[in-house]
């Protein structure tokens, strides 16, 4: 049984601006949930609330409840650092650590969590890189700088880095928007393979991508969740007029 995220009445602010206006949503276990919507609708902010990344921005604030299975991630005693270790994140632009080698990038999370034994690190790094479908391309160059890779490889390196600490959930914030179609296809294949083992939420403004990779889709507009449902139905028979307008390309 996989892990799910259950969001109740979530509100998020930047300063005094309310950007998420009370959202209820479920990220179902062992499936891919896509978050779509036009730029500025709050979809990135929404997923950044799920691993308590939102609050790292000055003046940012969150209200409401986010549960990982039965656990309230915003409970008073909950450590945001621990939350982020259990809910991994991949960002829009590939952001490998420029001062570290490929190996060190993947090992960073483990090493800084106290894993010291070389053999363990090697095993985990290979496992994570294999999972991220990058091992074959880099296994002979593990000492090279992470930024020497191509954009698509860098993004898979970042996925490997996130997978190395064995998260229960993987959040992906427009992971392909800086990549070409071939690299995008690789990442999408990877998403298909990964959902067998963990739960994925992916933000995208590419509707074809949402249709290709996800089981569930949520459509955000102006900080509200307009519609949420099974991806197939959402793209064929949307219930809300605004969803239909968006997916048929009438705005956004």
């Amino acid at each position: 049984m996989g892990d799910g995220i259950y969001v109740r009445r979530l509100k998020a602010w930047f300063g005094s601006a309310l950007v998420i206006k009370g959202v209820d949503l479920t990220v179902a276990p062992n499936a891919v949930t896509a978050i779509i919507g036009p730029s500025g609708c709050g979809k990135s902010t929404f997923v950044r609330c799920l691993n308590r990344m939102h609050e790292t921005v000055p003046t940012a604030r969150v209200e409401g409840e986010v549960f990982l299975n039965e656990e309230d991630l915003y409970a008073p005693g909950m450590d945001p650092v621990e939350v982020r270790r259990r809910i991994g994140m991949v960002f829009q632009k590939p952001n490998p650590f420029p001062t570290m080698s490929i190996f060190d990038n993947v090992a960073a999370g483990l090493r800084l969590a106290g894993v010291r034994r070389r053999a363990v690190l090697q095993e985990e790094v290979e496992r994570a890189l294999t999972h991220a479908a990058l091992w074959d391309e880099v296994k002979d160059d593990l000492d090279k700088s992470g930024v020497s890779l191509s954009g698509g490889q860098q993004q898979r390196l970042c996925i490997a880095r996130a997978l190395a600490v064995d998260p229960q959930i993987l959040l992906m914030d427009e992971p392909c928007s800086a990549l070409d179609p071939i690299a995008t296809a690789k990442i999408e294949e990877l998403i298909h393979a990964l959902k067998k083992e963990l739960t994925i939420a992916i933000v995208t403004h590419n509707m074809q991508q949402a249709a290709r990779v996800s089981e569930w889709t949520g459509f955000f507009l102006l900080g509200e969740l307009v519609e949420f449902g099974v991806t197939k139905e959402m793209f064929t028979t949307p219930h809300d007029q605004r969803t239909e307008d968006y997916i048929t390309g009438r705005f956004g």
Partner: protein
Amino acid sequence: MTPTARRRIDQAVSSLAALSAMVVIAPLLMIFGFLIYQGASAVNVDFFIHLPKPVGETGGGVANAIVGSLIMIGLAACVALPVGILGGVYLAESREPRLPWVVRFLADVLNGVPSIVFGIFAYTVVVLPMRRFSAFAGGLALAFIMVPIILRTTEEMVRLVPNALREAGFGIGLPQWKVTLHVVLPTARAGIITGVIVAIARVAGETAPLLFTALGNRFWHQGFDQPIAALPLQIYAYAIAPYDDWHRQAWAGALVLITLVFVTSLAARLATRGRTVAR
């Protein structure tokens, strides 16, 4: 305006700008040339490895002054590096609204304070209570000059580290301090080192703050609580003395000093060339 007239004006203004640029480096070239002309003859191996000779005897060197300068720069760095780098990281990473602004402003004021004032300050708080001039007092005066330089460069360099890297660190479950220590600082390292070297080059030639703190000494280093020689002080002492041989040595000392500063600056440039963090 006709095209010909426009081209003429363009040429005139471009030439003027190029000329101004050359005027900027002219003093350096002239100083260098003059120092070599006046001092090169006195620069020899003895100059680097011997103590000054007593008055009346020719020859001797400034080895003690070179060592003294290094000791005081080392003492100053021991104070200024941790304070400057930690403070700079704080200024760049803090979310506190007011304190960083105040510190930044005051650091800039501190940067503009004439160096002799730091000498007077160190004299008052160290030399007077200890009742003696000392390497320690000199080092402290130099540290005051280094701190704001290192502080502000560190801050600028840490600010240049893309926020995406911090988020990458947070994203794999690193606490703030580990993100700063293992992600932010290594990324900003080249720039911070440049700042440190610039600060060292700056204080290496400072004379005023050492006049009534380190005082100078014609012998080898005798402990941190004793007066100590320094290259700029030795130059000053030799330059105002009435002996031709000392004048030559003053020129030679100045040549050595400016060469050291030149080489350090060049090393800083080469060491950090092409390694910017911007992305």
